[in-house]
């Protein structure tokens, strides 16, 4: 079985270029980092660096409380 290229999984690299703050009210943006079931995708798939991934995680958890994302 052929090994798939790891970068196939990566999302749009332009999406997170230079992003340092994530607004928890921007549900459409946050949904790009979640599965349809509402799980947070890992950084290796989203292409986010560690700091961005932490910010995304925090924002998604805040958004969940307010019913903005699943």
């Amino acid at each position: 079985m052929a090994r798939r290229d790891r970068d196939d999984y990566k999302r749009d690299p332009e999406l997170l270029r230079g992003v340092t703050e994530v607004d928890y009210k921007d549900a459409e943006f946050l949904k790009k980092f979640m599965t349809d079931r509402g799980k947070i995708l890992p950084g290796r798939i989203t292409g986010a660096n560690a700091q961005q991934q932490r910010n995304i995680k925090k924002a998604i958890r805040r958004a969940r409380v307010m019913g903005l994302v699943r």
Partner: protein
Amino acid sequence: MNTYEGLFIFPEALDEEGLDQAIGRVKEELEKLGGSIDSAVRMGKKTFARALKKQKAGLYVNITFKLEGEKVDTFKSRLKLTTNVFRHQFVVAEGAEVAQEA
């Protein structure tokens, strides 16, 4: 005095006038504790991503306010007792003032 950004959800059954009154009541509570409202942005009615307490939708209002840090807990408990806020969440508005100036 800290600046907070609060997201408030009010019951969807409220009409325009009812929402005005509800926001007014939040403002009153805030002023009783020595705080003040900077801005109140109505984000309209949104359907929840999942049912919250058997409710399907709510009216979202984003309120930026100033309040002493020690009084935030009191404010939260007052909200529960005296207003009809369905759900709320406060975040310290870091750099909010900087963003307005820029």
